[in-house]
């Protein structure tokens, strides 16, 4: 008998917990926490503990499928590749590269994201490549890049334990990033202050010193209000502002318009609480802003992010341990997918496609005859819109499920059905894959090698623990095979290690990242430009990536859709502890599914009572986009006139309801606010 423990990185959230997979004779038996991993320290959340369930699910796709006469049939890899190659060539010859779109995946490895954008840019020759970061932190990438020059979490997870004052907003940390949430508790035990700004009374509310429950979508107003108080009371960090930043004057003129009285009117946050929070944050030794989707998923997402950046600069909380602006990335490798250029505007390492030298560099490296377009490509939502309009004919989706994850699902379905050719590469026949012409069976994190980059810019290995199931193949191999069938000779790699070597040669951010070092050092945090560089624990030490930090004056704009007499409630959406995103991986885990087998709508007791709704009753929730029926969860977690729906569940999909209105810069949809109505159905679920 052979028994071993294979050290790998968790495929769920962005914490980047490493743990062991106990393997007996080639079969993964269970997860064993790794006590020496610096992130998990031998602890895991319920998803981590149950991370192998989905791998062995009976629903796993283990052979390629081709759709014929409306039904899928099993196919060989050669058949599938042959069909893809002939359709791709036909469409490219007829409609050009602009008719193509590529959805890369925050679930797959860095190497696979690199290959996906290389396939798009280097073989089809389009910048139409994007991934679900568009739906989560596109506003962070754009906003922090503008303010600081680098669009990522400034500090590191272990530093959270030593924060003196937290501003946690739009992050349900204990549910979405449990191993960061646990560190907030540790800091609290050591005496840290916790300011929570969240409309919902989440688990962290029980330890919050101040809980501000803003009206959803009013974040710029309260952030400006905090800064107004800090400036007015003379507790800003003048020295930091003077030495490290620019454009303070213009910014100050804007925030001085946000008196606590005005902020109370817009946000509903009592004036006295706002003032207390401002003092608490500004007077702390090391204050840290932790945020997530509650800040980013708005039509003012970039404005919200820039406001967080302003607050950190105003109080000098940057470039030091246990401070910073800390966007928590939701997926295991959403940071990496961005880093590796699965974005329509940048090559790997955020090298802009609009810069001629960058294009020349990659054209040369990839031995291209054609020229990469100088204009940026389409984003996820724009590609679907282009498909809907008939301009985009062919879409290749790897490990994404827009039929659940994207706003306004009815529109998504119409867009997918309007395509001439859809390739989906996934572990399961997802709601999206059902619309495909060809489905390619990829592999899970247990069946391949590669790297993930966690939320704190931490590049870590995943290691193959078991052989791919059935005829499934590692995603990097599939991408290479597709490129070869399209005639490219630039996709020859013996292993993901060789792909990373190519990435390092073209990407200064990852220049010093090698498999040898990752094996020896356990992780490397970017920027890590060369073999001697130790990696970067926190950013902007002494100097911002862009030189001086830039204060952007930001004015409050209301959400795209506000409650009215037809749709009197605010609907806000999000994740829960027990499930992940579109449920593809977690809903086939018996332990996770048992905890929460279906969706629900959180509704305040007084609203429920007014409509005669009891806990567990089936209710109808409608917006201008659609209608769903869903069980009610009557709870004080939500404020009055606001309802919350987790988006994991296809049978009561929150994204039937959400508003596809976009942030003008980041093109992120406004998942966090729209107007809805709730009606009693008079039935128990």
């Amino acid at each position, binding site marked *: 008998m052979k028994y071993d423990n294979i*050290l790998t990185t968790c495929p769920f959230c962005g914490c980047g917990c490493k743990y*062991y997979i106990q393997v007996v004779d080639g079969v993964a038996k269970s997860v*064993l926490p790794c*006590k*020496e991993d610096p992130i998990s320290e031998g602890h895991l959340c319920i998803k981590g503990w149950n991370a192998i369930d989905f791998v062995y699910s009976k629903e796993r796709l283990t052979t390629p499928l081709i759709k014929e006469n409306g039904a899928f049939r099993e196919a060989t890899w050669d058949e599938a590749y042959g069909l893809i190659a002939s359709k791709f060539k036909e469409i490219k010859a007829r409609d050009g590269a602009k008719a193509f779109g590529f959805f890369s995946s925050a679930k797959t490895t860095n190497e696979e994201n690199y290959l996906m954008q290389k396939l798009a840019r280097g073989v089809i020759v389009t910048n139409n490549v994007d991934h679900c970061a568009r739906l989560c932190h596109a506003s962070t990438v754009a906003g922090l890049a503008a303010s600081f020059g680098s669009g990522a979490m400034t500090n590191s997870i272990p530093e959270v334990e030593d924060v003196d004052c937290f501003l946690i907003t739009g992050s349900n940390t204990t549910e979405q990033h449990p191993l960061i949430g646990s560190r907030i508790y540790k800091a609290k035990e050591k005496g840290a202050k916790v300011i929570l700004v969240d409309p919902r009374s989440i688990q962290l509310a029980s330890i919050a010193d101040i809980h501000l429950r803003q009206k959803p979508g009013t974040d710029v107003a309260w952030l400006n209000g905090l800064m107004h108080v800090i400036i007015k009371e003379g507790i800003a960090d003048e020295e930091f502002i003077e030495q490290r930043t620019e454009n303070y004057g213009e910014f100050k003129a804007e925030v001085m318009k946000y008196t606590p009285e005005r902020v109370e009117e817009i946000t509903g946050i009592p004036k006295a609480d706002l003032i207390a929070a401002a003092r608490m944050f500004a007077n702390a030794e090391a204050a840290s802003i932790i945020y997530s989707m509650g800040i980013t998923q708005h039509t003012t997402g970039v404005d919200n992010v820039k406001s967080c950046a302003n607050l950190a600069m105003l109080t000098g909380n940057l470039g030091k341990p246990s401070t910073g602006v800390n966007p928590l990335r939701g997926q295991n490798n959403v940071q990496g997918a961005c880093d590796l250029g699965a974005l329509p505007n940048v090559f790997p390492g955020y090298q802009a496609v609009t810069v001629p030298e960058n294009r020349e560099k990659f054209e040369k490296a990839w031995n291209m005859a054609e020229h990469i377009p100088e204009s940026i490509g389409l984003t996820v939502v724009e590609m679907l819109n282009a498909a809907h309009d008939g301009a985009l004919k062919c879409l290749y989706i790897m490990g994404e499920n827009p039929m659940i994850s994207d706003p306004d699902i009815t529109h998504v379905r119409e867009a997918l059905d309007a395509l001439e050719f859809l390739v989906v590469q996934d572990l399961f026949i997802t709601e999206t894959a059902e619309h495909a012409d060809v489905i390619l069976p990829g592999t899970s994190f247990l069946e391949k090698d590669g790297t993930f980059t966690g939320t704190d810019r931490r590049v870590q290995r995943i290691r193959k623990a078991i052989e791919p199931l059935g005829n499934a193949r590692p995603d990097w191999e599939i991408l290479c095979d597709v490129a070869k069938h399209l005639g490219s000779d630039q996709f020859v790699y013996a292993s993901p290690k060789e792909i990373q070597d190519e990435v390092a040669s073209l990407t200064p951010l990852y220049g010093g990242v090698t498999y040898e070092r990752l094996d020896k050092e356990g992780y490397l945090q970017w920027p890590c430009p060369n073999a001697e560089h130790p990696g970067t624990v926190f950013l902007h030490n002494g100097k911002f990536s862009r030189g001086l930090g830039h204060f952007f004056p930001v004015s409050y704009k209301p959400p795209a859709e506000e409650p009215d007499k037809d749709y009197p409630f605010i609907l806000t959406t999000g994740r829960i502890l027990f499930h992940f995103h579109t449920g593809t991986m977690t809903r086939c885990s018996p332990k996770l599914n048992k905890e929460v087998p279906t969706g629900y709508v959180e509704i305040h007791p007084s609203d429920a009572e007014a409509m005669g709704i009891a806990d567990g009753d089936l209710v109808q929730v409608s917006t201008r986009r659609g209608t769903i029926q869903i069980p009610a969860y009557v709870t004080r977690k939500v404020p009055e006139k606001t309802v919350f729906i987790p988006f994991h569940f296809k049978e009561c999909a929150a994204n039937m309801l959400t508003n596809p209105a976009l942030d003008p810069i980041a093109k992120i949809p406004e998942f966090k606010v729209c107007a809805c109505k709730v009606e009693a159905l008079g039935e128990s679920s």
Partner: protein
Amino acid sequence: MEQELKAHLKKLMASGDVAGIIALKSERGMAKPYLFADASELECLCLTPKYPMASVARLLLDEDGAARFAIVCRGCDERALRELAKRHQVDLDRLVIVGIPCDEEMARECACPEPFPSVVAVGTKLEQWEAEDIGAAYRAMELDEKLAFWKHQLEKCNKCYGCRNACPMCFCKDCELENALWVKHGRLPPEFPIYHMIRAFHLAGKCIACGECQRACPSDIPLMVLNTLLREDMEELFGYVSGTGADAENPLYTKEEMQ
């Protein structure tokens, strides 16, 4: 101790008496439980940090219905194996226990009641060891303070089930913690105090004070306070200390549990 242990295990392996040795292996600077089947691999053997080795033994004995293994055991590992054997979860006849003692630092970290196994194969056991009384501060509290203490502690629970998953004594296929009759599904934190009380009471007569539950807890809930109090009750009420005395019958053990 490490070199001496390696020599001891090489001899054991050469004897052909065991199919493999369950112990920790150092790989890329980190320890992991491993089944050593080849003497040359023993160079990578290491001793720390602690891992729940009894659980590994149970897994491997189940996977291979016949083989005999050696296992490097600390005091807690041996206590766990004994208690598991009483419940027919491991067959001690198929295990060769190679006992090693804990040093003072490790023993203190665990507040271990007995930081050495019954037979020490390699190393020297601590003389004059007295464990810290981790229940003392709690016992000194007033009733309302006790309630406030647990409310505060258990509110931090992330419902990861890590305390149960890491516990060498939690072997039930159907766990009452997951039974909606007792604990509402899908709530965070789980209902106070039933979730943690079920686990504590189910460990009465089982907990062998290894501390794995507390170490597995992301929220630093002092679970060993609960467990220690129950261990004390078991001793006081029934004169039973779990994990000690291979022949001592467990007063709370029922046939139903065996099924």
